[in-house]
């Protein structure tokens, strides 16, 4: 069935179809319409779940962690400052190996208050042990939320997963989305089997004092799971493709086969870059797009082009573009652009211009430094 709706409503629908037992949520722009919609599903009896109206995002994540530790499938959604407030608990979910699934609607960080798209909020969570997906369309939002559960809950992975997409550009923009039958989703997504559980018949303690050596083993186990997740993400993305007709992986390559230059972008920027690639191809330029779908685990092996142009809608102050710095050793010529922070519009024409600048050997803040 084709539904035309905003990414937020689509995310809420996907969460509903994944049948979480517990939702703990707190409002924040531009995420709010997700948790509003979920509250409506629960109150109308369309979704059988406990909905905890928490008093902060920190508590939202704490509640999801505790519910997951009690054996429940969980969901929450947040944005920007809400995600930053959760930061401590994101680590907690990761190290406790609890497969909480969350949607983060990317929004700039204040001050001053800025509610528009910027990827710094979720990229700042890169070391928390969460699998991170970035979606470029509402269809990808739906498909990624469903897959996120299956990947996070995989018995060899058991890590939390976050699906991120741009505030307003996606969150409040309606697009057509193909939504599968509930029965097909149920076939794809098995019941949650926790890796460990708080059970009165088997009274374990989780998280007491851990001496240095076992602590390091816990970290090592988490790293191995993250590495394994690369394979699992591709396998589950392929399985999803066979079942629903849309295949997913760690990255999406577009017209890269004979490309001299490859543009690397994420989220909505990647959708715009696709248009730029088509335009440039029409002009005879040999250029392709490499869309980064997963930022954690980071698919270095899939980012091995000789000449790459990286567009970051984020900034690590004192270092530069976050994605650029991840991959700057992967090719012989890597050009980095910082663009679109705080929701500055970046059109396909701007991306074409960045391509021209890169060919001239230029890079930097666009259009602040180079234009």
């Amino acid at each position, binding site marked *: 069935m084709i539904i035309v709706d905003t990414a937020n409503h689509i995310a809420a629908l996907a969460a509903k179809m994944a049948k979480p037992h517990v939702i703990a949520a707190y409002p924040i722009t531009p995420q709010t319409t997700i948790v509003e919609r979920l509250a409506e599903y629960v109150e109308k009896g369309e979704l059988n779940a406990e909905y905890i109206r928490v008093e902060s995002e920190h508590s939202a994540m704490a509640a999801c962690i505790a519910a997951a530790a009690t054996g429940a499938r969980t969901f929450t959604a947040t944005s920007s400052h809400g995600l930053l407030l959760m930061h401590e608990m994101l680590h907690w979910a990761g*190290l*406790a*190996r609890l497969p909480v699934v969350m949607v983060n609607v990317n929004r700039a960080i204040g001050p001053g208050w800025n509610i528009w798209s910027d990827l710094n909020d979720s990229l700042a969570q890169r070391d928390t042990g969460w699998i991170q997906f970035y979606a470029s369309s509402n269809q990808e939002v739906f498909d990624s939320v469903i897959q996120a559960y299956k990947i996070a809950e995989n018995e060899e992975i*058991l890590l939390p997963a976050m699906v991120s997409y741009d505030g307003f550009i996606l969150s409040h923009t309606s697009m057509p989305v193909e939504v599968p039958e509930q029965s097909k989703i149920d076939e794809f997504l098995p019941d949650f089997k926790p*890796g*460990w559980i708080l059970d009165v018949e088997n*009274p*374990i*303690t*989780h*998280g*007491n004092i*851990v001496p240095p050596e*076992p602590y390091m*083993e*816990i970290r*090592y*186990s988490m790293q191995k*799971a993250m590495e394994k997740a690369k394979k699992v993400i591709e396998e589950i993305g392929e399985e999803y493709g066979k079942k629903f007709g849309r295949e997913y992986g760690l990255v999406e390559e577009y017209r890269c086969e004979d490309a001299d230059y490859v543009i690397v972008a994420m989220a909505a920027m990647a959708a715009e870059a696709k248009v730029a690639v088509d335009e440039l191809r029409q002009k005879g330029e040999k250029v392709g797009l490499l869309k980064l779908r997963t930022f954690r685990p980071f698919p270095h092996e899939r980012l091995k082009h000789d000449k790459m142009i990286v567009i970051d809608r984020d900034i690590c102050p004192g270092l530069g573009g976050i994605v650029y710095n991840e991959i700057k050793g992967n090719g012989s010529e890597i050009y980095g652009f910082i663009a679109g922070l705080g929701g500055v519009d970046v059109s396909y024409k701007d991306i074409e211009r960045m391509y021209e600048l890169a060919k001239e050997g230029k890079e930097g803040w666009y259009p602040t430094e180079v234009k």
Partner: protein
Amino acid sequence: MKTAISIPTEGAMGKTGTWRVFHPVIDLNKCIKCWRCWIFCPDAAIDRNEHPVIDYDYCKGCGICSNVCPVNAIEMRREEK
């Protein structure tokens, strides 16, 4: 998967009786079996048998049992070595 899961174990911190400087000794002739020593022991180191039995493997020697005994049946004695 390895995470911070721990299993209930007696002596999770080892034989905590080694922490002791003084040890309690019960005079069973005086004991009236009120069980105050048992309930107030922070270490659960007083067993309820016929009469109170101190588990010296785990008694940390705090002396609460001696302090709460209404008939002064528990004496604290310095450890020998």
